[in-house]
């Protein structure tokens, strides 16, 4: 139950922030391009995307906060340890979030109010800061694969440079941001293809623009995904085997390859959308496959994130499955780490059925209101006011 709660809020948070990465990249560039080329469609689209992003960023924050609170409630000892060790990467992410939040508000409120160059400058802050956030968080994810940079003497601390040279870090970071761009481009294409299908003839210009970008980003993300998987194979084999399980005939302790199969199915839908795009690109018409590609890409992100997290079960740090590595850690710190980095040892005070029920009582209305909010934002009567 504990892990389902964590997975749910983390997955929703990740999907929203992935869209945020793509939108923060697209919005300032599209607006600038629209201004330079005097292209009304680009200008309108960038404003529509910004309205959506400004309205939903808080939602991503709510689920991110819920995840942090859940993690603290269920695994207080892990948070205590992580606070001592990963303070700097967390700090990088937090400082980037602060400036990103400022950039969102300043960019949104100053739209058409400030000079174009000033607005574009804020847009660049929006763009750059969004890539710094996962830089910090993915450094922590890589550390949870392989605790490179962990120094035990004279006291446990993190050698940040060594941590950033973690072999799983760069592939994971690049794969993540490229996949985020692909998902964002597919989602934009999907939404505007839907608009086109409902009679907005100009919407196809946006699909025309974003489907090639989605194709490129999707292809690169797959290559980087393979590289990341290979680094896991080389450095954290336990996680690799759990992730791909029977698909690679591995003796997985916990076979989570079903998550990878979901991801593959979503990849297939995105590939079909690309094929559809290649077929219709010279004579554009409605494609239900491109409409399906947006949701498919977001489900793939969700499944991929779950796969990356669950495949190291029951270890917070996947490398702890390596007996040779564990025996290289001196006592008593070995037992100390093993106890705090065990996902099966959750806080007994937070794992009663009563508390689960109470959590659900609060979580369900939050989820329902989030769905209603997104529905109103996308399809409700407020749409014309919000988007135009």
């Amino acid at each position, binding site marked *: 139950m504990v892990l389902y709660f964590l997975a749910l809020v983390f997955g929703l948070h990740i999907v929203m922030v992935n869209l945020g990465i793509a939108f923060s990249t697209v919005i300032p560039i599209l607006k600038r391009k629209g201004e330079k080329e005097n292209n009304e469609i680009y200008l309108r689209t960038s404003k529509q995307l910004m309205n959506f992003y400004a309205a939903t960023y808080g939602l991503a924050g709510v689920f991110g906060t819920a995840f942090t609170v859940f993690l603290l409630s269920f695994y207080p000892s892990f948070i205590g340890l992580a606070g*001592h*060790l990963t303070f700097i990467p967390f*700090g990088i992410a937090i*400082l980037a979030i602060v400036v990103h939040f400022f950039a969102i508000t*300043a960019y949104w*409120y100053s739209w058409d*109010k400030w000079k174009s160059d000033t607005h574009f400058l804020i847009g660049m802050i929006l763009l750059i800061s969004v890539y710094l956030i996962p830089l910090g968080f993915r450094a922590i994810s890589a550390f949870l694969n392989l605790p490179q940079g962990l120094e035990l003497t004279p*006291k446990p601390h993190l050698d940040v440079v060594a941590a950033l040279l973690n072999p799983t870090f760069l592939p994971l970071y690049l794969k993540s941001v490229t996949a985020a761009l692909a998902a964002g481009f597919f989602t934009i294409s999907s939404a505007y293809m839907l608009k086109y299908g409902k009679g907005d003839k100009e919407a196809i210009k946006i699909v025309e623009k974003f489907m090639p970008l989605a194709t490129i980003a999707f292809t690169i993300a797959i290559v980087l995904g393979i590289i990341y998987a290979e680094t896991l194979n080389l450095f954290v084999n336990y996680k690799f085997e759990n992730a791909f399980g029977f698909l690679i005939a591995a003796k997985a302790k916990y076979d989570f390859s079903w998550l990878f199969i979901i991801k593959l199915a979503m990849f297939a839908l995105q590939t079909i959308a690309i094929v559809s795009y290649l077929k219709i690109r010279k004579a554009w018409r409605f494609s239900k496959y491109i409409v399906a590609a947006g949701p498919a890409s977001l489900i793939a992100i969700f499944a991929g994130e779950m796969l990356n997290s669950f495949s190291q079960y029951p270890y917070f740090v996947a490398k702890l499955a390596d007996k040779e590595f564990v025996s290289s850690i001196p006592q008593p710190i070995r037992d100390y780490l093993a106890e705090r980095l065990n996902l099966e040892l959750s806080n007994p*005070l937070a794992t*009663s059925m009563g508390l689960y029920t109470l959590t659900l009582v609060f979580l369900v209305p939050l989820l329902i209101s989030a769905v209603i909010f997104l529905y109103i934002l996308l399809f409700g009567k407020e749409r014309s006011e919000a988007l135009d």
Partner: protein
Amino acid sequence: MIMSVNSYMQAPPGIIPAYDNGWKFEEGYPKLTLFVPNEIVPALNVEVLKSAGAEIIGKTKDSVIVALPVSIVKQLISDSFSGKTVGESILYSVLTESAKESLKDVPLLKVVDAIVANTVKEVGVYTVTFKSPTYFPSILHAIFASITVSSFTVAGGYALAYAKRKEDHAKLGLKYGIYLALISITIQGLVTGHEMGVAVAEWNPEKFAAMEANTPTFIEKIVAFLAYGDSNAKIPEYYKIPDEFKPPLIVHYLYYTKIILAILLGLAALIVSYMLIKNKDFPYAYLIAFPVIAQVISFLGWAVREIGRKPWTIYGIMDVATAHTINPPSAGAAALIAVYLTAILAALIFASYKFLWRG
């Protein structure tokens, strides 16, 4: 909910303060009430525990209720978090001979966790933080602080807009903001702030002593009346607090700066309200300082609350040294982060100003 956690950190349920018309540090106070599980009780040497200042004050079906001097609680928590075993901790000295042998290699954290978790269960898993004796005044004080700061912000923003454009809706916004601010700051001063002060005097006497450390005698009488309902009551003496429990003296200066600024802001709100009611002209653009001053007062209030809790992170349970990261940033890194955050704050204020100015 967040205030309940913060209130728990100020005064957890079961805390027994060290002041009752005089300091009781020599008698082992402050003490914390703990529910020791029945499984652990036989391992404890009751006579040794009592000689260390512990009092057995009752029983439940599953536990024995013990009031333990917080100096011992602090040491147990500190030893637990530094990874010591029972044999390496002060707990060892209060164990029976047979328990000493069987428990000496057990991580202390396991034992302390069991006692703390059992205490939380006995007090109420869902309600433990809400049972802090300072919760109710704290939540009221925080809510009215936020209303006060928000209404001064509304007033300041509309005042600037009104000074610039003289539009009716801006004047209406200014009126709405300033009247609400005046009502709110009055309630804050006379009711919620007072209740907060009374709670601090009763449950955090060390902090109260720090707040009133260098207060002139004639003001002390007023403070004594406000805190205890008796102008002849004795204010706890700051300089008699042992170093291990003494909050920093700066709390006194922060507190009185806050009080003076709050009184001045309240008077200013009264004057502006009068000018608006009488429809008189006023250099309204200057009122943009209101939000800043209100934020400073709020900041000072939180500084008194948080710094005044030192040397505790959770009063009576965990001290700052235990809660502190073992890898603190260097002074240079901390300064750099402070500059970064200040720069963003400045940019945000500037952006807000530009937005308001341009409308």
